[in-house]
């Protein structure tokens, strides 16, 4: 999976580091002082690095819990996000991380305990029902066998039932969850695009069928699950989504789905320009775009009608009250 492992000297002997190094002992190990000297340096090419992605083990300093952008998430309670990892092992052509980071390497912060302390502070300082998103700058579960992220944070949130954790993922790495008792305030939110879009623009990901199967197993085991239909990509017929919904709800009990969201493709203009420079040959990105207040989205004829039709077919399966449209 990775071509090499970089390790900050500071975490060289951290137990989580040692466990990961043991798992990847055949890979070159390279020591560094700070992850930024590799991750943030200039003259890197994200696209090329995806072919030989490395893992960087580091210590997260400074703020670890941040307010989630407005329009991101469900309900009116305050939302936060925290990133134990930067970047993703998957390669989705529409992903904003390609424009956000200079490097395609994955940074894993091993000091989970420090994240937990700050989350605990935020929980006690805020109202009940606060949501904590873990999959904003990464996929929450994709590296689970190595990172043990869910193995650590799910029991932590089990002790803080007044807060909610969203594990946003496209991964089928659910073994550690299935080994635990379901935790009512930990929601596994699986992202989907249509089958055709997944085949065309998602590389190295579990297939749509496997994602549905994994989510089904989690639901069977009693885990709260959610559905994320983001990004909705242009020129996808509502019928294609209707077929996807049929497949999903043939396996899942719709009445027990925590929430479902939809959201069109959108990306900060600066990120989009960077992605376009990386992939000048990518038909998806060459489509007509519009820029509204610094956010780029694809032009879609009759967008509201298109979205309406698509969401109507979703509401044939779920209660509209459990749906939200993500706008950020």
């Amino acid at each position: 999976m990775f071509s090499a492992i970089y390790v900050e000297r500071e975490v060289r002997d951290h137990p989580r580091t040692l466990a990961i190094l043991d798992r990847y002992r055949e890979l070159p190990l390279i020591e560094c002082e700070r992850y930024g000297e590799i991750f943030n340096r200039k003259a890197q090419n994200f696209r090329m690095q995806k072919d030989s992605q490395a893992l960087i083990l580091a210590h997260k300093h400074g703020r670890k819990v941040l307010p989630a952008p407005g329009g991101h998430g469900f309900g009116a309670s305050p939302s936060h996000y925290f990133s134990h990892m930067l970047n993703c092992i998957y390669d989705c052509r529409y992903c904003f991380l390609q424009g956000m980071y200079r490097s395609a390497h994955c940074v894993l912060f091993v000091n989970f305990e420090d994240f937990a302390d700050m989350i605990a502070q935020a929980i006690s300082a805020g109202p009940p029902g606060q949501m904590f998103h873990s999959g904003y700058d990464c996929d929450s579960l994709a590296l689970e066998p190595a990172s043990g992220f869910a193995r650590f944070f799910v029991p932590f949130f089990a002790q803080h039932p007044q807060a909610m954790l969203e594990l946003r993922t496209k991964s089928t790495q659910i073994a550690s969850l299935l080994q635990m008792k379901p935790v009512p305030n930990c929601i596994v939110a699986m992202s989907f695009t249509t089958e055709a879009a997944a085949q065309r623009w998602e590389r190295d990901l579990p297939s749509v069928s496997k994602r549905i199967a994994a989510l089904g197993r989690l639901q069977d085991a009693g885990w709260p699950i959610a559905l994320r239909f983001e990004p909705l990509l242009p020129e996808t017929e509502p019928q294609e989504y209707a077929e996807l919904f049929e497949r999903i709800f043939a396996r899942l009990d719709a009445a027990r789905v925590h929430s479902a969201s939809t959201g069109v493709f959108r990306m900060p203009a600066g990120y989009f320009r960077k992605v376009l420079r990386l992939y000048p040959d990518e038909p998806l990105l060459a489509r007509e775009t519009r820029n509204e207040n610094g956010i780029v989205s694809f032009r879609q004829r009759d967008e509201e009608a298109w979205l309406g039709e698509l969401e109507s077919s979703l509401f044939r399966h779920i209660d509209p009250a459990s749906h939200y449209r993500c706008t950020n």
Partner: protein
Amino acid sequence: MHETTHETTHETMNKSARGTTRESVNGAVNLVVAHRPEAAPLLDWFDLTESRPRGRFRCYQGGDGIALTISGTGAHNAAAAVRHLHERQPEAHRAWLNVGIAGHRGEPLGTGLLINRIEHRRSGERHWPPVPRLGLPGSSLVSVDKPETEYPEDAAYDMEAAGFFAEASRLIASDLVYVFKIVSDNRASPLAELDLRRVPELIRLREREIRAIVEHLRQRCARFASCHTMPDEYPLLLGKCHFSATRKAMLAGLCRRGRALGMQQRLHTLAKQRFRDAGALLQAAEAALAAPAQAREAATGETGEGPR
């Protein structure tokens, strides 16, 4: 090269029967070595002939997009040689590879090491060459100003890589800049005992690895170049009107879009038309790419399109 007190031994090479060199813009690789004994096997393998006129640094060119320069000792020279070679070449995407000998306290003589970390001892600057999946042993490296005979760290020691890497990664993404070193001296066989006549032999020991790295870089660079070179329509359209720098960039963007969307034929058709000025041409190009395929086909009589 890890400098020694010995005089450089020049190998005689017969380069007279070389074919005409042809610049290859895709998959091109520039090699940088410190001294002639390190260059000799590479000149043979890649069939390189000396470029004329000779400048400050000797440069060699092959017919297959491979070029080489001999920098002399030290990081400063290595950086200057990179600049020199770059300035002699037509604009293109090129990968860079520094090949040479190095000291290492423990590695056996002849071991080939793909360098994954470079520290310039004097400045403290660190560089991070890529780690491709080539199955080659990796090592960190310290670039020193004077030959290192104590090998204090578990690292390779040379005198050029830091200067080479810093300069080459100003010219291209550092993901296309590699350093490969062959161990020439270690604690058991110290630098003072190094016979420079053995250097070509040490390099030859690692022919398979060096060829594999060069081929890997060629493929990587070719993929990079193929999507970043300008579509054929660009110069055709550019020649039709006077373009300001801003409008040139807009035209470049439209031509790239046209290629990505498989609509190059539409732009090619435009290149046969006349336009009042660059603004009118850009407007027409935008309209051509925006039009749905069927409507456009009906209007222009086009029957099909796709990348040419």
